[in-house]
């Protein structure tokens, strides 16, 4: 940090604020309007009347020679971006405004080559009237070189005068701006092609240059002031760039020796300065030419500069420290993908299998349709949307029924109803289906006219739920056409096998015919559960209901039906009596005999005793005949009921005789 009054500014906090600002800039097209961005700018207010300078290195940001701990996230990405733009130093002078910062970030976000081709970030910032941020880019220092190196060397020698450092010819060439080719040629020439000599010359020249530069005062303390001079009057490119380029123009054996030397001394800043110019890949290419010790040094160096060994391509970028190397690192990302593709080359099987799997999975369109329906039923949590969706699903069921595709309709219904849905969703579905039945009744009715459809249609309607069953029962009560009524009953027989409650409810209907139809359905459906509901109907006021109830109950509960049947032999209505007589005759219940025997002398059975006696006689069992004979041979009977019973018994026995 430099400048007055800046002691209160914490370099980490300031850079952290820059990182936040960069993060916001990355995410939003108009970052200055974002609260986080404004907040980040406000955090820079500690810089009022002061300045701060950061040095940008390979994966490092330093301030006053101390490396900052860069967290991942915005600060790390900003650090990387600064680095990609080859920025060596960035200085904040006073508190930058949001717009100033935004301008810097825009430039950083842009393609680094385009930015450099257009004059660099510094020029762009100045053109944008941004003075609170100053940057120095490495590459730009080299771009204003116009004079041939010989002229500049002459200037250098004249500047140096008698008191200047004694530098080798190569070192002078470099500091005077000779091109890498020129330097490499000179090295090869002076060393007569001997790799060791080339390496020695290179290392000596390098060490000759850097002490010289150091003596001119280039260090972290005075960098900002020195950089100001560089910014305005760039004379030569940084010598390290020339050395780095020349390095690749000399034989590989020599390179390996140089690398060995530099790696051995890598803890010294001037040596790491050169090493930092090389990309990981470039160093890796030299690895086979290194001896074991140097190779270990190389690995140690790589570990020092790379975040993680299994880092992504972006994380690998800090390994390099020159624009050329950034390019190469990017290529390494491409290499990773290329490796992946090469791997895929042998993967014909897996991908070939995909086509088959895809065909197989898409072949069952109906299954897929049900799958998507099911999922939609599960995921839709908005009641109004769910109801609308149910409505459209119901319409599809109706369409399938209309098309005679009852299996599809059943599958559709199943997809929507067969699963764990919340109670409220289940209610919506049931209401939707009832509504469908109401609105599209004609469709179902039409389908039901084909006897072949009835079983499937009944199953479908059963799947609609209890409310739908109630609705069908209501339809039945209103239906005037007997043929349609029969069809409806047929459907309700199937529905009733799943839902008895709605049908039982109609046992108490005021209209006799409604009750009778419900009883008919119950009888056809079958099952013990109907019995308690049917038994009271034997006492129903309307004889037509009674007849139906007797018919329904007898097969369902033969023993329990017998008392009612026997009692009905004395019913005032002839049809009831006939029905019960017929049913009793057909009955095989073991309680029939005892019930008839009891009824024979029951006072309430007046008018039915002849039938009872005949039935007993027809039973033909020793017990039934014994009952008849006993009462037939009674000589003296006081009650008229018993006398009537004797008469009936005698008639029964006589008729047979």
């Amino acid at each position: 940090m430099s400048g007055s009054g800046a002691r209160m500014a914490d370099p980490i906090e300031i850079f952290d604020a820059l990182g936040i600002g960069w993060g916001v800039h990355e995410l939003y097209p108009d970052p200055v309007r974002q609260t986080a961005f404004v907040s980040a700018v406000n955090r820079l207010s500690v810089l009022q009347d002061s300045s701060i300078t950061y040095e940008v290195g390979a994966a490092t940001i330093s301030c006053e020679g101390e490396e900052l701990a860069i967290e991942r996230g915005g600060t790390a990405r900003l650090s990387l971006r600064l680095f990609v733009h080859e920025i060596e130093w960035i200085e904040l002078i006073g508190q930058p405004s949001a717009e100033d910062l935004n301008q810097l970030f825009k430039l950083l976000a842009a393609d680094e080559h385009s930015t450099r081709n257009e004059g660099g970030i510094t020029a762009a910032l100045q053109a944008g009237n941004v003075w609170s941020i100053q940057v120095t880019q490495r590459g730009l220092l080299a771009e204003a070189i116009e004079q041939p190196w010989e002229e500049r060397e002459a200037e250098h020698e004249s500047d140096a005068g008698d008191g200047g450092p004694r530098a080798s010819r190569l070192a002078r060439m470099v500091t005077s701006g000779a091109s890498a080719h020129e330097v490499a040629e000179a090295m090869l020439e002076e060393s007569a092609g001997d790799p060791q000599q080339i390496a020695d010359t290179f290392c000596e020249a390098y060490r000759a240059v850097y002490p010289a530069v150091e003596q001119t005062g280039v260090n972290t303390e005075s960098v900002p002031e020195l950089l100001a001079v560089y910014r305005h009057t760039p004379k030569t490119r940084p010598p390290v760039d020339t050395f780095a380029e020349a390095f690749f123009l000399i034989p590989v054996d020599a390179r390996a020796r140089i690398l060995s030397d530099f790696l051995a001394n890598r803890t010294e800043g001037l040596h790491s300065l050169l090493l930092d110019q090389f990309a990981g890949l470039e160093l890796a290419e030299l690895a086979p030419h290194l001896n074991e010790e140097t190779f270990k040094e190389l690995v140690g160096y790589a570990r020092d500069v790379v975040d993680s060994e299994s880092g992504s391509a972006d994380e690998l970028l800090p390994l390099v420290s020159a624009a050329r190397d950034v390019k190469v690192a990017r290529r390494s990302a491409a290499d990773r993908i290329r490796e992946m593709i090469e791997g895929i080359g042998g993967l014909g099987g897996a991908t070939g299998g995909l086509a088959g799997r895809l065909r197989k999975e898409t072949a069952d369109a109906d299954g897929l349709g049900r799958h998507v329906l099911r999922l939609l039923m599960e995921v839709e949590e908005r009641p109004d949307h769910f109801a609308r969706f149910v409505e459209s699903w119901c319409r599809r069921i109706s369409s399938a029924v209309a098309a005679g595709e009852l299996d599809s309709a059943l599958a559709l219904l199943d997809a929507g109803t067969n699963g764990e849905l919340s109670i409220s969703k289940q209610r919506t579905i049931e209401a939707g289906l009832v509504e469908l039945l109401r609105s599209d009744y004609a469709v179902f009715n039409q389908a039901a006219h084909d006897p072949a459809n009835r079983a499937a249609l009944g199953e479908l309607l059963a799947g609609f739920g209890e409310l739908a069953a109630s609705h069908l029962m209501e339809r039945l009560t209103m239906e005037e056409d007997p043929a349609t009524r029969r069809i409806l009953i047929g459907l309700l027989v199937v529905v009733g096998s799943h839902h008895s409650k709605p049908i039982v409810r109609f046992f108490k209907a005021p209209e006799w015919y409604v009750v009778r139809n419900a009883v008919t359905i119950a009888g056809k459906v079958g099952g013990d559960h109907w019995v308690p509901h049917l038994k009271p109907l034997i006492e129903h006021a309307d004889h037509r209901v009674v007849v139906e109830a007797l018919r329904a109950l007898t097969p369902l509960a033969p023993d329990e039906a017998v008392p009612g049947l026997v009692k009905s032999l004395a019913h005032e209505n002839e049809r009831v009596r006939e029905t019960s007589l017929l049913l009793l005759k057909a009955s095989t219940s073991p309680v029939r005999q005892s019930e008839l025997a009891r009824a024979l002398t029951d006072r309430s059975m007046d008018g039915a005793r002849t039938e009872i006696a005949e039935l007993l006689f027809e039973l033909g069992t020793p017990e039934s005949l014994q009952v008849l004979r006993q009462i037939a041979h009674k000589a003296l009977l006081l009650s008229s009921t018993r006398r009537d019973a004797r008469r009936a018994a005698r008639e029964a026995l006589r008729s047979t005789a």
Partner: protein
Amino acid sequence: MNESNVQEFLKSLQAVLGQLNLYPANHPNSQTALHRGWEASCRLADSDEDVVIGLKGYAYFLNGELLAYTSLMYANLYHDLAAREIETITLAGATDATDYRAFVRYVGSHTEDFPTGQSIRVNESRLTDGEDESAFADLRFSYSGVVGTLRTLDHRVAREGSFEMGPVMQAVEELIDQALNASGAALLLSTVKSHDEYTFYHSVNTCLMAVATGQYLGLTHKDLVPIGAGAMLHDIGKVAISSQVLNHPGRLDREQWKEVTIHPQEGAQAIVAAGGPGHEIAATIALEHHARFDGLGYPRLGTDAVPHLASRLVAVSDVYDAITTRRSYRRAETPHRALQILLQGAGGAFDPDIVKTFISLMGIFPPGSVLRLLSGELVVISHHRADSEELQAVMVSTAAGESIEPELVAVSVDQVAQQILAESVGIEPATLLEQAGVAEQILASSAPRVDEGAIERSGIDEEALKDQATRSLSSIFERD
């Protein structure tokens, strides 16, 4: 005077026609639109020489040069102009406002008086035979046709909450017919971006890439149609999201996010309601395109459930196109970066097999990639050749940054220095389709196919791939 001036002219013309359909000519809205249209025509006009916009073979031409991108974007207007039998529009010097008005009234069928103004002259020039449609005119036409279908469908769904599957299927079938004949061209065409109508173009691009992936796997036209329809309709549910939320530049709050996350089910519901052959796969894709391979994403499919393979296939194309397109809330990424993101998500967000297939199809540098070579030149990848490892490209600028007449080149991966966002250098890769020589090369290169017979051969260690997968991918693409 360039293609963007023509686009501005056509866009404002479209706006004027729309306003005149709604309001009388003297209504302030019509007046404003007319004024803007006239201004656009003035910007297009050149004071020194005539500017001729030609219409032929579903394409626009500017002074005889095909405007491929414009032809895609303004296909609907092309139909309106063609319906009025307009073949050329000549702007001669500064446009006179009265002439512009007369021209617009004629185009909009508000008058049968043929415009006779001197500054805008209709059908004065004739296109020469040389100005003919390119080899991919039909593909381009199908592309814009599908965009048109989506536009109509979007309005219908927004207005009536429903649509018919028939026209969609027909449009998709036509597009697939074209795409299957020239898969390389289709991939290049899928780099077309529109910021005004992002969803439509994104949907068609996703469709093209999904179809190309399916074709690469060896699926037939019949297999591909429902998958293509699903890819095309995968975002139809976005019609339910308010435009404020859809284009919200910042981070979404809880309610806004909730609104975004319902679009898959909205879309699937609309498709289910539409019914028709193939709707089952399309609805499944629409519902599951944000459901991840690892069970995360939305909507949640339940324990141990993975999205349908067709959904997984479309998801990869969907994300690829989304990442490579600039949105109001984030920047575009290069195709190369998009592939990296897909790789990171393989086994987590995406089906690793599909990712592998997709990358294998697209190559390291997918068609449309803009690359700077180590030697400094700028090239655009046009297509891949099954018989060559070299990148088939078109050089568009020199090392010095000077634009050049596009030149076909083959470059190796080793020559690539950097990948650049196409829009940052003002390149529209899809227009390469119309460059001389490119079409022929693409047509000549056979479509790559996966060898289905090599099932037993093993490849990448899938477990290792899954291990490297990043399961917590940024939500950058979840929102798209």
